[in-house]
């Protein structure tokens, strides 16, 4: 049998527990397309952010108290008394925003380069599951400081479940553990908020296993058949990922140290008051597009279905997109629709922060309709009629390669 490691102890251990060879395969030897651009940095960035969130969250949990009378005070205790407590809390709160920013770009890259297409459908599914878990974690976590937005955000979102016919109200009562958002709710939200990140870690492992089965997609979207088209992950992509971390940490630090509350809502520095509703209840920026879809539809149940549908539709995306060509580079018409879709999504986000009245309501309905049109009509039809550009036979023949 050939030896895998020079070090005898390592060899002995790895022979019995092959984590080292698995790690080496994944992080060192893994053959990776040599033409990946910087948009491929966002997977590892999401990974490091997840780790940062778990570590900072763990330390916050050592000081936080999940009780309606003490939660707000304990957060202020962290901010004022705990050594570097302010830093850890701002890392965690800004980190949530950063995590979503990164994941949105990661998803956007997948959409642009067709990374969801065969044979990577399950990889794509796992990604959506991670995204759904992130939404849950972010929502639950936002409740914990027990400020006004925490409380009313929790109230509004949990009330969505009352749209379910027949059992809706019972489910809401069950979620609350009472007749309003109160101490039992806070406690269970804390408990679940602690659990979900570890579920995410689990799904991330599957995500990586699925990724390594067929390897990364690449900007040309073509299957790579030649050995020369791939390079070992280490050192080429490790160093590139580290450079990405550097850029990300700079942006992250600017927010943590100089604009820590810019992405949050001032109302959340007012302790929760069940008797006073803030003027505008607005979720964090990363939920705004979905919030806009929810409010675009006048019937509660339909609104909820549309909001959930806007994410769940991604599960069937690999089949809605009938085009065999993956990358947008070779799909001139889809490329335009892609950018329109992105723009539409950003407009939805902007609308989500507004009171849904007058022309805002009209815009939000048009955008919502377009969102679904993109998936349900444009993509399937385009795949049938679009004339794609000729694909290169290998990445060295790719004209766009610098």
């Amino acid at each position, binding site marked *: 049998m050939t030896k895998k490691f020079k070090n005898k102890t390592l060899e002995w251990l790895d022979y019995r527990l092959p984590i080292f060879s698995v790690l080496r395969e994944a992080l060192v030897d893994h053959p990776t397309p040599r033409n990946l651009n910087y948009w491929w940095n966002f997977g590892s960035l999401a990974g490091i952010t997840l780790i940062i969130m778990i570590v900072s969250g763990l330390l916050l949990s050592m000081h936080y108290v999940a009780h309606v009378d003490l939660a707000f005070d304990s957060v202020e205790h962290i901010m*004022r008394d705990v050594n570097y407590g302010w830093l850890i809390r701002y890392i965690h709160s800004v980190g949530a925003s950063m995590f979503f920013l990164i994941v949105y770009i990661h998803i956007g890259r997948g959409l642009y380069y067709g990374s969801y297409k065969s044979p990577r459908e399950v990889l794509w599914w796992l990604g959506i599951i991670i995204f759904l878990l992130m939404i849950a974690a972010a929502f639950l976590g936002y409740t914990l400081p027990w400020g006004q937005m925490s409380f009313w955000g929790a109230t509004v979102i949990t009330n969505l479940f009352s749209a379910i016919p027949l059992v809706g109200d019972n489910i809401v009562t069950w979620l609350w553990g009472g007749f309003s958002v109160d101490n039992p709710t806070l406690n269970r939200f804390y408990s679940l908020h602690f659990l979900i990140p570890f579920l995410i870690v689990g799904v991330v492992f599957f995500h990586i296993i699925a990724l390594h089965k067929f390897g990364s997609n690449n900007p040309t979207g073509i299957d790579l058949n030649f050995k020369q088209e791939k390079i070992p992950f280490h050192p080429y992509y490790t160093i590139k990922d580290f450079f990405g971390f550097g850029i990300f*940490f700079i942006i992250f630090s600017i927010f943590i*140290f100089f604009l820590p509350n810019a992405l949050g809502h001032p109302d959340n520095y007012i302790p929760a008051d069940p008797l006073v509703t803030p003027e505008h209840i607005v979720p964090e920026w990363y939920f705004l597009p979905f919030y806009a879809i929810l409010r675009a539809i006048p019937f509660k149940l339909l609104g909820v279905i549309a909001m959930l549908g806007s994410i769940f539709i991604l599960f069937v995306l690999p089949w809605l997109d009938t085009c065999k060509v993956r990358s947008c580079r070779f799909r001139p018409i889809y490329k*335009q629709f892609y950018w329109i879709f992105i723009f539409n999504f950003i407009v939805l986000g*902007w609308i989500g922060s507004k009171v849904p009245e007058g022309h805002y309501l009209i815009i939000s309905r048009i955008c919502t309709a377009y969102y679904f049109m993109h998936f349900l009509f444009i993509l399937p039809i385009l795949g049938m009629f679009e004339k794609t550009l000729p694909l290169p036979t290998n990445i060295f023949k790719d004209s766009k390669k610098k």
Partner: protein
Amino acid sequence: MLKKIFFILFTLFFFIPNSFSKEDVKLKKQNWSFQGIFGRFDNSTLQRGLQVYQEVCSACHGVKRLRFRELTNLGFTKEQIVNYAKTFEILDGPNELGEMFIRPGEPTDTFVSPYKNKEEAIAINGAYPPDLSLLTKAMKNGPDYIYSLLVGYEDPPNDFELPDGLYYNPYHDGSVIAIPQPLYDEAIEYIDGTNASIHQLSYDIVNFLSWAAEPELQKRKALGLKVLIFLIVLTALLYVTMKEIWSRIEK
């Protein structure tokens, strides 16, 4: 071509929100020493701000998240703080007889709020005078807003119907506010002899409240600068190393 259209749309989009939003009253923006990346608090204005709080605001508002010991950050000595804390009465207990008792304050105590609880505050004032500890953080453009509010009291326009017991202030939501104008020229006499104009009083109290809301601000920004410089150097190094490594195959 496509990209151009997209970016034009994109930039347009960032201008729209401003033109669409309802005409907000323009805040009287001040130059706060604690803003910007080199932001720092100025001890003399903080100390005056404490005096304003003590002599005016504290009649109705608490700052319950502050502890006397934290006043060292305003440049007070330990002894001054001990003496200052002593002037407050703290409810403590129970003692060995099971009774609550009053004792003089100590540096570890928190500032004493004027009312036992929210209900009492409302019963006496009709409205709840909020705790000021986090006020500047709990408002959009907190410092400028509070400053504008404090100096912004004026007579209502002729066609404005002012409800009983409320006061006209264009900076407040709906232009009416429950608190009568708290600060006037010469409302108090500053210990350090500074001229107590309404501008000065408002400026000082906002400084004090900003410190109360973010006592970590100075430390945060100082550390942030160091971290940023370090990260920029490290990232530059990583970039050079990356180019070096990739040059092996990029031929």
